[in-house]
Structures are given as C-alpha cells and as structure tokens.
C-alpha cells in the first residue's frame, strides 16, 4: 500500500482507499475515481508539484499534498508496470 504521491512516472496502481469526507476526494469521485479503479501516474509538473494522473480515459492534475492521502495498491493486477526513473 503506497500513497499516490510516491508512484513513479509511468507506474500504475489500483486505488485502495480515499477519504470521502475531503473535498478533493469528493471531486475525484465525481470524476469516477472510486476504490478499485486503476490509475497511472503520468508525470510530475516541472517543479515537482502538482501531479498528472490518468484514470478512466482522462488526465487530471492534483497537488502532491492532496495525493498523499490517496492510497494505491501497486501489486494488484494492473496493466504492465513500466516505471521510468525519475
């Protein structure tokens, strides 16, 4: 179980848990990011924050601090793992 903020660019993970009380998570849920959803960290912004993640055929940006509380399972059966070196 890893915080989303620690994924490497190109790495996939399956969303294990989020905190529905938080405003950010409510926005993400409305976009379809629900527990069990596979997501991919595409890249970090040039200054390291925010992150661009892909899920359900869309690319969404969120801040590092907000990604720390999203827990993903990187060992779940996700598509091929292709982490790039940061």
């Amino acid at each position, binding site marked *: 179980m890893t915080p989303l903020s620690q994924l490497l660019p190109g790495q996939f993970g399956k969303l294990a848990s989020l905190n*529905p*009380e*938080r*405003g*950010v998570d*409510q*926005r*993400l*849920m*409305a*976009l*379809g990011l*629900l527990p069990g959803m596979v997501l991919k960290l*595409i*890249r970090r*912004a*040039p*200054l*390291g*924050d*925010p992150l*661009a993640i892909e899920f*359900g*055929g*869309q*690319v*969404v*940006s*969120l*801040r590092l601090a*907000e990604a720390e509380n999203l827990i993903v399972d990187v060992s779940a059966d996700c598509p091929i793992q292709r982490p790039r070196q940061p």
Partner: protein
Amino acid sequence: MSTPDAGLLVALVGNPNTGKSTLFNALTGLRQRVGNYPGVTVARKSGTCDLGDGQKVELVDLPGLYSLAAASPDEQVVIDALSGNIAGDRRPDAVVLVVDSTNLLRNLFLASQVAELGRPVVIVLNQADVAKEQGLRIDTELLSRRLGGVPVVMSSAWKGEGILDVRRAIASAVANQTPMKRVAWPTNIAAALTDVATAAAADTGKPVTEAEGQRLLFDTNPSTADRLGWTLAQRDKTLRSARDRVRNSGYNPMAAEPLVHYAHLRIVLEGVVTEGAGKAGRSAAVDRLLLHRFLGPVLFLGIMLGFFGSVFWLAKFPMEWIQFGVDALKGVVAPQLEAYPMLQSLLADGIIGGVGAFLVFLPQILILFLFIGILEDSGYMARAAFIMDRLFSWCGLNGKSFVPLLSGFACAIPSLLSTRTIEDPKARLATAFVVPFMSCSARFPIYALMCAAFIGPLYGPGWQSVVMIGMHCVGLFFAVPTAFVLTRLVLKVKPHPFVLELPRYQMPKPRDVLWRMWQNAAEFVSKAGTVIFAITIIVWALSYFPRDASVAERIKASNPTAAEEVVKAKVQAAYVEQSYMGRFGKAVQPIFDPLGFDWKITVGVLASFPAREVIVSTLGVTYSVGEGAKADGQHLRKAMQDAKWSEGPRAGAPIFSLAAVLALMVFFALCSQCGPTIATLAQETGGWKWAAGSFVYMTALAWLAGTAVYQVVIRLT
C-alpha cells in the same frame, strides 16, 4: 430578434471541455443575450434556438460542471436553474445534456444526477468525429433504450455535423416529455432520502423535491439547506441519523452518490461502446513535449512572451489610429465652436478626450481576449496552470492565476474578467485583488516621460532601461505578499481543491473565439465605459470652472510681446491654477509634500485618478506647454527640467530631483488610478466592498512607498 414561441425554455448542461459552447453557438446562430445571474458573478448566456420545424425555444447555456454537488457558485447556479429556483427564470421545459463521446462513463454521471430532477432530457453525444477517429462505435439506440427512451443523438458541433438532429431531438423531448431512467437507490439510502426530504419539508413548510433531498443528504456544503431555510439546529439530528442509516447499509454517506451512480452507469453502458481499430489521440505525445521537465517551461515562456509581446505590438497600430482619429475629430469640432468656449472645451476636452482616452485601450483588450480564448479552447490553458501552480500555491493562489496576472501587464480590465476561470473562490478573489498591481500599459507613458526627461540625460540609457524594468517589477513585489496575507489572514472562504482536468488538445474554432472576444469587449465597453465617461466629465468640470475672463486678460496684458501660442498656453495654465481642481491641488499639496510633489504634480495626480495616463497631458497643461504634450515632447521635458521650487524650505532646488522622479514613478506604479478597474473589480467581486478596499489599500501603499523612496533618496543624493 424573434421571441421564442410559447415561452419554452431549454437548458444546455454538460461537463467542461465537451464542446458545449460550440454547440450552443451552432444552435442559436449567435442570436444571443448575455446577462448575469442575480447575486453571483456567473454569466447567463441565452439565445433563440429554432427546432427545425419553425418552432422556437429559448436556449440557456449553463456553466460547465462535473457534478451537481454544490461546491462553487457555478454549480449552485446550475442546480438552481434546473430546479427553477432562480428569480425571474422559469424551470426548463427540457434539459440537453452535452456529452463527450470519447468518455461516456464520466460524462453520464452528471446526466444521471440531472435525471433525478425528473425533467425531459436529450443526450447529445458530441465530438463524435473524435470518437470515430479513435475507433469507438457507439450504439445510440441501445443507449437510448437503456436510459428509458430519451433521445440520444450524435453530433460534432465543431464541424457543424448533426446539429439538425439535435434540434429535432429537442423538439421531440419537448413534445413527448420523456424523463431519463433514474438510478435505483438501495433500500436504506432511499429510506434515508425520504426521511431527509420529509423532515426538511416539515421544518421549513416548503416543498422539498427528491433532488433537493439528495443534495441535503450527500453534500457537505450546506447551500441547499441554507436556501430552504433549514437551520443547523433543525437539520442536525435528522441528517445525522439519515447518514448513519446509509453507513449501516455499507456505504460511506459522502461516497454513496458516486458509487451508486457509477455502478448503475456501468450496467447502462454494457455493450454500448465497441472499440475498433483507431488512432490513439495525439494529446499524450504533445504533452510529452509541452509538459517536459526542461522543455515544458522553456516552451511555456516562449508561448507566453510571444502571445503577450504581440498584444503590445499588434495593438500599437490601431491604438495610433484611434489616437489620430480622436485628435482629428477634436481638430474638426473645436474650431466650429470657437464662439462658445465652454461648449467647445466640454466637447473637445471632456467628451471626445474622455471617450478617446478609453477607446484607445480597446485594441489591447480585444487582442488579449482573443489570446485568452485561443489558450482556453486549445486546451493549453490547463497545461499552463499545471506548469505554474507550484509558483503560486504557496501564497494561496493557484496555477490559473498566472494568465490573469500576466495579462495585467497589458490592461487590468480583461485580466479581471479572465479571473472567472479560477474555480476556487478564495484564489479568484485574491487574484482579482492583486491584478491591478501589475504594471499596465497606461503606466508606461509616465515612466517613459520621467526616464526620457531625467534618468536618461543624467545617468545614461543603461540606467534608463534598468529603471524602466524596475518599475514594471515594483507592483509584482507588493502583489505577492498582498496575496499571501489576503489568503492566509483575511479571506475566511474555504479553499477549493485544485483538481484540474487536462483536456484533449483541440484546434480552437475561430467563430467561437471571435464571438467570445466580442461579447467580452462589449461587456467592457458598456459597463466600464459609462463609469469612466462620467468621471471624465466630472474631472473636466473641476478643472474648467470657475472661469473668470479677467484671468486671460491679465496674462495677455502682462505678456504683450510674447507669441500667440505661448500666451495661449500661459492662459490655460492660469485657468487650471485657479480652477476648483487647481485650488484643491494647492490645498492638498501638503499631503503629497513628503513625496516631493509640488502643487502642479499634485493636480496631475488628482486629475489622473479616473485614468492614470492623463498625467502626461495634465503636466503639459500645468507646466504651460499646452495640452498636446507627449511623453517624447521636447517642450514638456525642458519645462520640467527647468522647474524650481519657488518658495518654502526647498526654494531654488529643482522640483524634479532624482528623489521626486523616482517617488513619482513608484507612486504611479502602486496607486489605484483607474475608474474602469475599480468598476470591474466591484462587478467581479460582487460588491463595492472589495473595490473600495483595493482603492484605499493601493493608494495608501503608493503614498507610503513614494514617501519612503523620496525621503531615502533625497538624503543619499
């Protein structure tokens, strides 16, 4: 404009980046009206739409949103508009849901929420061309059946395809009144919803719809309860037990809504979309370049400098034409009225001059709106926010603050209007508050005059450039701490999470971009124009009256040999000196004395509160070189270089010392001297409170900084 038959109202609803506005323009053919929703800064765009059979309806384009959960003013407006809770607006007779064909699941979440309102619905699968390119095939008949028989049509608004189908579908929805199939709530959630709606209706004595009950149960934001007048004391116990009931059935009450809707939609979409061979979108490849760690920021800077550099370059020519036209008009009008000097001055200096001073900025404003439109519609605006967010987040702003702040270097007014793209109300207000600090192009003439007259001749062209660049940074230097203090200590608004979709890149559609540019410019002219016009007339009157003919005679008598031009300039200067404005300037000069301003500069400062660029021509009048003074005019420079204090402790010393020159420039860099900006700020922040605050704060800051500069530099030189 034809009026819609039978007063039917149809609402256009959809996620951002679905081509909704393009579809709206295609359906209404630009027969549109733009207004504001009462009490909020959300634009209400509506137009007349022909349904293909001669029947006409009023189509209203609601703001783009992802969910009906009321978190922002935009979202609240959509909920209120769809429920018929907006004063002076009817409940829509049908709702057109605009959906991105390449991402049905996410787009239909909003549709499924809207279905709960029970209105007749049309589903438009827009951007069908892109879906086709990607090899996606959508079974619209199957989707229509699964959604309870509502019309489902495909269109590509960008290419103008399928528009007639959309018109017919609206006609059939209005005629048949078929509602969209609703989600089946699990028993316990359904019971909790009924409890909430019943209790709210009993406590408030108002009817509460099922959709409102959902907002009450699922939203953390209390705006729906507030609107109904359901107090915290009344609702607390009911909501707590209803949410416990949801929790006991295995759902987190804050997650139940998306979980149930998305589960429902996965079943609805089963077998609807088949993926065939197709090209993956190019956006990912473009992003690899434009968001690259090193290349991304370089390209970003290049794009921004290119765009905004050309605002100045492109606007230069029409600005010169407008200036030329205004001067020519004055030249034609003034001689006709030689017999009526007051009317002549009112028309030439007051009305034509005032309108001209305002119109001259229109080219910049148009070009800025054009560029902002291109950046938004292409999808690059979201990337710019992504790249810049880190630089702004620490002081409470966000990446979307960047473009308004950059545009502020051209003109604050379009920048203030462009802050509407910032969803977070806190960041939006803070950005709007600091935009006027950016060194707009109206500050340029005074910097240019001071540098050309004093800095250049005394210290060389190198220092002249340094001072020019430095003056453009002064505002920025104060804006950042201001934003920091404002967002940390003053604004008590809860910040919005910065969740931003990076949409597919798309070629902007010229018609849409030009149309929005025109609408924004028209709004600017009608709103700001009237304010500055009124202020200009007032300032004209203050510097014209009283006008005793004996003043002119005295000047003429004491300069019998001087050339006519010189006498004319002297007469004018004498009139200004004894006008209300001149008397007032002399009276308040002590306030500006710590900045090293004499009464002539003080009059210039006072006269330029409605529009700061007026300073150059006012100095021209008070230093008696005539009002045709230009920043590069030799006469004005000479007159200012020769000006000396005639009395007081500084008698004999030059008025424009290095200290006074720098203080004057710093004062103009920071002072709130723009009528339209104040008016626009009031409009965008929903009241005069912030506009007044901005005026007082900036003016006080300008005085303090100007004083500090003068007092320090005068002791060093």
